[in-house]
């Protein structure tokens, strides 16, 4: 869409001299239509049908959507998802920022250390899930042994309904704090050194400098990191599926896992499509809420600075 923009920073009027960029975009647009837009339209269509593999399809209108509030497993899955997501946004943001502050310092082998630190997020999720499962093992797992060293009684980790979500969040935090670290590190690198120099002369402590110089300047980066974390945590599948498959019972069944069961275990394609749509709307709404928060904070900052 090449609409005239008032904030044209190049100084050149767009209607004059600018070549057409459409040929660059068209092939990708075709791919996007085929593998992203078409599936979405098709999903909407399927969600309006009673559609089970191997059975005739019947148009049922919004029936699949009306099923959801009355489906206790779905309602429970929403709560699991929200709890899992809230923890999986906050904890990586905290630990990632901490790590970014450390990695912002100069020390020998920093690049190598950073490489080691980001390994969990790059490693194949199923592979690490497998090892975590072994580590969670109540009798033979190394985690309970480590707890015993500091005098904490053995835990059931992912094998108990009460501790399964925190345990999975622990894996998720271990895995994704590095992403937050990288984004915040980028923010730290963009901060000029002058504010710190004058703060040092004024005798500011480390915490004061972090609170009043660093934190405000990296807030936009924290928001980006938080946004990405929000979306990824909501969608989290591999780790949960490979470690617990939603169990024990349904204690760690998030919407995404339930969606898998409905669509590819029960082959209830119509209902699965409806869940997929509602799930997507939920993600968009939560992301929009977060964007709104960001805009409001921008506004407050602007007012405070005036």
């Amino acid at each position: 869409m090449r609409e005239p923009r008032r904030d044209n920073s190049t100084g050149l009027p767009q209607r004059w001299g600018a070549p057409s960029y459409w040929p660059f975009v068209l092939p990708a647009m075709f791919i996007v239509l085929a593998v992203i837009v078409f599936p979405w339209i098709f999903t909407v269509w399927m969600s309006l049908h009673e559609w089970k593999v191997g059975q005739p399809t019947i148009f049922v209108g919004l029936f699949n959507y009306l099923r959801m509030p009355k489906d206790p497993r779905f309602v429970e899955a929403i709560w699991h998802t929200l709890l899992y997501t809230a923890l999986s946004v906050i904890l990586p943001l905290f630990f990632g920022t901490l790590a970014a502050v450390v990695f912002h310092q100069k020390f020998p082998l920093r690049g190598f250390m950073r490489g080691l630190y980001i390994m969990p997020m790059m490693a194949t999720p199923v592979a690490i899930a497998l090892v975590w499962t072994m580590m969670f093992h109540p009798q033979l797992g190394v985690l309970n042994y480590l707890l015993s060293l500091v005098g904490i009684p053995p835990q059931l980790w992912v094998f108990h309904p009460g501790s399964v979500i925190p345990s999975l969040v622990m894996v998720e935090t271990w895995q994704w704090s590095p992403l937050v670290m990288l984004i915040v590190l980028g923010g730290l690198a963009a901060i000029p050194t002058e504010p710190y120099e004058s703060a040092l002369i004024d005798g500011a402590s480390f915490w004061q400098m972090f609170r009043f110089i660093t934190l405000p300047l990296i807030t936009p980066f924290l928001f980006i990191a938080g946004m990405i974390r929000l979306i990824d945590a909501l969608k989290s599948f591999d780790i949960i599926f490979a470690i617990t498959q939603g169990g024990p019972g349904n204690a760690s069944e998030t919407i995404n896992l339930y969606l898998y069961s409905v669509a590819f275990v029960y082959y209830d394609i119509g209902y699965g499509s409806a869940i997929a749509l509602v799930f997507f709307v939920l993600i968009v709404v939560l992301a929009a809420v977060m964007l709104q928060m960001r805009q409001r904070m921008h506004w407050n900052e602007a007012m405070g600075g005036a």
Partner: protein
Amino acid sequence: MSLIGHSNTAGRRGSHRRAQQGGFRVTLRKVAGKIGLAFAVFLIVSPAILFFIWMISLSIKYEIDNASYPPILIPDRFAWENYKAVLTSNRFIQYFFNTLIVTGSATLFALVVGVPAGYGIARMRAHKAAIVILIARITPGLSYLIPLFLAFQWLGLLGTLAPQIIIHLVVTVPIVIWIMIGFFETTPIELEEAARLDGAGAWQVFRHVALPIARPGIAVAFILAVIFSWNNFVFGIVLAGRETRTLPVAVYNMISFDQLSWGPLAAAALLVTAPVLLLTIFAQRQIVAGLTAGAVKGG
């Protein structure tokens, strides 16, 4: 910044007269600061390092050592046959090549299509086009699977690698476009305008001015697309048959069916993720550079 590291220990003691302090105390603080920093680095990196060390340890132990309590880190006898068992059984090599073909095709195709698209979108300031990419980024992979699974069924593609290559585009194309938009938005447009004034066409400008500058961005897009495609698991569990499994799916199936002994399982897990981990260590500069550049643009 060494400034912050230095002030770390000073701040903890609540000193407010650093400027007037004598040389000896400053050196002492520098040393203390360095030790503190080393400790902080160790604390932060250890969960990652210890995990992978433990993973290696699990993979080279016999069953009896893996089942012992307290756990053994370095066993008396190394069970190299765990690796041998994995490499010789379960069609591991075939699954390795499956993964290579799926990831390679999906990544190359995404680069061919996505790099120009990122350029076009950045230059057109087509923020609405970027929204489509954003939607793709937001959508759970499973949502694509239901309709595309049916489509592949109708097209008779199930049982070949084609469905997985196509569906991996869902992962790779948005990554490439997203990173390239970020990169092209930060590359100077003045050079391109100069080239255009000299009579270069849009394609020439792209090929000879924009593309060379964006090479680091392309490297990043390539690396991330490869990693996320290689690691992908969701698409495989639904679309892969016995012949067309990728490695993550093969490993998952090992958990559920073939064996319960930890040694070979850990060995398989390590083999599957080793290429990605090596890439991470060797290309961490590109990964970091790309993600930070993308974030700067978004900030």
